[in-house]
């Protein structure tokens, strides 16, 4: 049995230690918001937070998550109103939506580390996330919008 902390809740799963965290989340814990896109750390659809860091869960063995805090899209905010989610709604970012959990999880770490990201910061942080629908221009705008919202919230 492996003990995990996901979105602040404790879980016990029976899995081989080399099983990727992605499949533990999706197939054993039924948290399907985290997506499978490539399986080889190329697309970012599977991005989750491990102790606040963005990781590709498709190549992260579940053993690495033991004793750490795992946060998935389902736990990004309690009210689904993280500044990024608000900005995504405001600008209607998603098309098919399949990549968007990963985009949001990558962007969340960026925004925490760089509250005022430049275009270059956004390019650097987000280029590991593929969007086949091509929503990049809106993602970029929405990250900047979220940065503003985040500032307003902290100043309020």
């Amino acid at each position, binding site marked *: 049995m492996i003990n995990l902390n996901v979105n602040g809740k404790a879980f016990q799963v029976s899995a*081989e230690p080399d*099983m*990727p965290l992605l*499949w533990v989340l*999706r*197939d*054993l*814990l*039924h*948290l*399907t*918001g*985290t*997506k*499978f*896109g*490539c*399986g*080889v750390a*190329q*697309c970012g*659809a599977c991005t989750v937070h491990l102790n606040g860091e963005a990781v590709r869960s498709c190549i992260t063995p579940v053993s690495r998550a033991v004793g750490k805090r795992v946060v*998935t*899209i*389902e736990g*990004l905010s309690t009210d*689904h109103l993280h500044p*990024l*989610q608000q900005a*995504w*709604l405001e600008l*209607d*970012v*998603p*098309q*098919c*939506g*399949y*990549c*968007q*959990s990963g985009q*949001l999880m990558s962007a969340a770490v960026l925004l925490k580390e760089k509250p005022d990201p430049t275009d270059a910061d*956004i*390019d*650097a942080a*987000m*280029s*590991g*996330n*593929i*969007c*086949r*629908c*091509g*929503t*990049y*221009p*809106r*993602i*970029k705008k929405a990250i900047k919008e979220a940065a503003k919202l985040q500032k307003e919230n902290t100043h309020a």
Partner: protein
Amino acid sequence: MKTTTDKSRREFLKSMAILGSGLVIPFHIVKGMGRGAAAAGVAAAAGNGPSFFAPNAFLTIMPDNTIQITLAHVEMGQGVWTTLPMLIAEELDCDWKDISVQHCPPDPAYNHTVMPLIITGGSTTTWSEFDRYRKAGATARVMLTEAGAHKMGVPVSSCRTENGYVISGDKRVSYGEVAIDAALLTPPKDVPLRKAGEWKYIGKGVKRLDTPEKVNGMAKFGMDVQYPGMLTAVVAHSPVMGGRPVSFDASKALRIAGVRKVVKIPSGVAVIAEHFWAAKKGRDVLKVTWTDGKGASFGSVDQAKRYREMASTDGDEAAKKGDVVAAMGRATKVVEGEFLFPYLAHAPMEPMNCTVKVTGGSCEIWTGTQMPAVDQANAAEILGISKENVKVNTMFLGGAFGRRATPESDFVSEAVEIAKASKEFIKLVWTREDDMKAGYYRPFFIHKVKVGLGADGMPTAWHHNIAGQAIMDREKKLFPLSGKIDGSSVEGVNDSPYLDSVPDHFVGLHSPKEVVPVLWYRSVGNTHTAYAMEVMIDAVAHAAGKDPIEYRRVLLKNHSRHLAALNLAAEKAGWGKGLAEGHFQGIAVHEAFGSFVAQVVEVSIRNGKPVVHKVTCAIDCGLAVNPDGVVSQMEGGIVWGLTMALYSEILLDKGQVMHNNFYDYKVLRMFETPVIDVHIVPSTEKMGGAGEPCVPPTAPALANAIFAATGKRIFELPIMKHFEV
């Protein structure tokens, strides 16, 4: 509108499947939906009269004011989850917040208004549903008004509707309160629709209805289907195109914890396990012997050689005027181009998948599909049961771009075969590699083009031969080819507006057959024809010593919509004015799916490679129902077009696909995405599409910009192949 009949019973059984983790998957089962039943529709819950109001197949109003809208088209990113409800809301006067949306079941009531099947494709949804969905809303409003007037004891003529209420003076009743009464009325035969000046939603736009669930992980794609007792299947396919499994050794696979069964199916060998990871590990150690199949001798190098030879001779006639050979002989100058377009994989973000449960004589399917009724029929055939016994639940599509519309339902059929052979409730999941290698590519094409110019520099002879596999096939049950020409191989060339003003021309087509399966891919034939035409025109303008925009303006003088897009794009891009040092522009304009799109691409060359800085786009799609949705399709289509132009190619050697995943099938990423500036031509012309017309001009405009920057004409795609160090 059909009138209500007693026999017509539409039964919605709304259920919620609640899984262990608290995950909720809502689904509905529609029972006994014959054409009439779906189209009319007084519902009977437990046979006690109506429990909701469903004046047609597209709209149901519940006593709790819920407005349930059923889509005859699927949401794959293009926004129909919002656009179709806008059309209903425009006439219904409901509260936007009360709307809930679902995909339709595979019932003929939801057939496309211009094609005899349920299909989402060809950028047709908005214009083809413009009247049907508005009428659905208007009919309901008339009936609700009548029921409301009756309930309030006022004349119908004193009533108006607003935001989900029937209002008369200071009295009002909600739609929900009179839904059951309305259900007992006979729907009016014809209802007047509102004039453009009265529109509240159309042309103005609203926020997408699917965004909330797409930002919190709750949107359910085919990949996310999970039920108790469901297992996951991963399939080993033949490494060689067209190969079939002969035998297999599963002894190692079956020793992997979680692996339950290994079964042979026509397309391969499936490992079935408790979860994806176990199934995938099982497949990795599976030993399969394959027949080599027809594909073993197939290679891209040889294919190019064969097609070049083919295109050197005249193919089947797709367009002809005058005597092109004689006219070419009289030309003062001849410009030639031989173009190569590789196979392309769609590679939508969500790999192919399908969940199937077979119980006794019936079957239930959950998947993301562009043609649910085709999948239903194919599944029924495999199982030897009637179509009515196959339920298809269409989930959100994690991108499709044509890939989820195969006439033989390839991945759905495979899942059904696995369920049949294993007798298990399974979800088939393809890995990215499976997806990349399984075929259904945009066909490989060669174009050979020769253009003769007159003394004034304008084209007088255009000789154009194309070689490439047809998507339509005479032997196919669905979309059979009639005649010799598959229109999708030549669209954009044989109907090119440029040829109008070329007195002598010939367009020929060779349609060889190959083992590699091919399919429509976002904007279909226009992916290559627009490139060949727009790069040629640019080359011809250059040979004539003319500005490429001026040259196009002359040729397109009788094509006002092309011109409007061209001029707007040129103006907004500041064509030829104030460009940064080392920056160059290229332009292209093309009509596809009834819309006219022009783009200006701005590039520079850095470290010997092209860098794309900006794409300015203008579209005339007629009325833009949801303008921001159109803009978003243009943005996405341009990113798609840049990926295709710069990077995309699928090569084969000895029948094996040489690409695996996004590391060797590159797609555009954030850091290389240019600024995209989209403008909509104000237009009252005929409505066209949005999802596909944005793609065709991008690649040629980019190639023309690279020519402006380097003097290098790129005839073979992808572009980056020519800039490798």
